[in-house]
């Protein structure tokens, strides 16, 4: 099944420049509906307001980290099926393992390029 390029994507990062980079790369890949949040708590608020089809989140944020957000999402009946990609500079094996155990669908380390983002999106959503 083809990927719906009108799907709602929520990107979360406390660096506004990074939000802008990810949003632009996603737009260049053809995605049209991209929403932003600057930490896990505000992401949860947005999740309650809009039906999202994909979450792309940084890890290291305050007051709620990306890992805490992932755990919240996976423990909620309403949100647990939403694919979740972690995009972070936290590259230690124990981080990847912790994210995997919490139910992350894919993991991208910063700095990343458009091709890596595309590959991981295809791995999670299917070809587009």
């Amino acid at each position, binding site marked *: 099944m083809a990927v719906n390029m009108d799907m709602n994507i929520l990107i979360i*990062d406390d*660096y*506004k*420049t*990074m939000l*802008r*980079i990810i949003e*632009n*790369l996603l737009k*260049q890949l053809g995605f049209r509906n991209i929403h932003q949040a600057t930490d896990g708590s505000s992401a949860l608020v947005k999740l309650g307001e809009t039906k999202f089809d994909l979450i792309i989140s940084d*890890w*290291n944020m305050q007051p709620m*980290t990306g*890992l*805490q957000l992932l755990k919240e999402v996976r423990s909620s009946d309403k949100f647990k099926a939403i694919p979740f990609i972690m995009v972070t*500079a*936290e*590259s*230690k*094996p*124990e*981080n*990847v*393992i*912790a994210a*995997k155990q919490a139910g992350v669908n*894919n*993991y*991208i*380390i*910063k*700095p*990343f*390029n*458009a091709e*890596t983002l595309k590959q991981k999106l295809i791995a999670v959503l299917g070809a587009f």
Partner: protein
Amino acid sequence: MMLDTQRPDRTELLSKTQICAELENLASYINNARHEIAALRPTDINTDHIPRATDELDAVVGATEEATNKIMDICDEIGEVVGSCSPEIAAKLNDFTTRIFEACNFQDITGQRITKVVQTLKQIDVKVTDLLKIFGNGTAADKDSLAVRTGEAALLNGPALPQDAVDQDDIDRLMSDT
């Protein structure tokens, strides 16, 4: 007549004298160190050097963020004229702007590295405060300042240095391990 058990042992006396001498030396050493530290004006570290250094680093983050946003603004402007170009030129322009956006990743990474340095400076600030308390007021160091991060907090380390960095292929292997 003195019993053997009441007589002070000669070795014991010698060792007590040695301990006293060592303690005196130690006290003198600490006193000298205290004067030397005072001469270094350690309060300047708390009140001047560290706040100044953190402000400078914050300014670096602010300046790179501003510059990165300007670069991305220009990319957006290029994106607006792409539609009026031939398909071949438009594809090339899109490729160029994608590469510029990729390169702008640096701002996030350098920002996180600088945040780590600021946190380290703050730790040094706490330690210096503790030392000042010990040497100045004789009060004990704050136990909180020596706290070790555990659990999820221990997983927040920011970007690794290039020599310690793990690449995306290593991450992919970890993700695919069952």
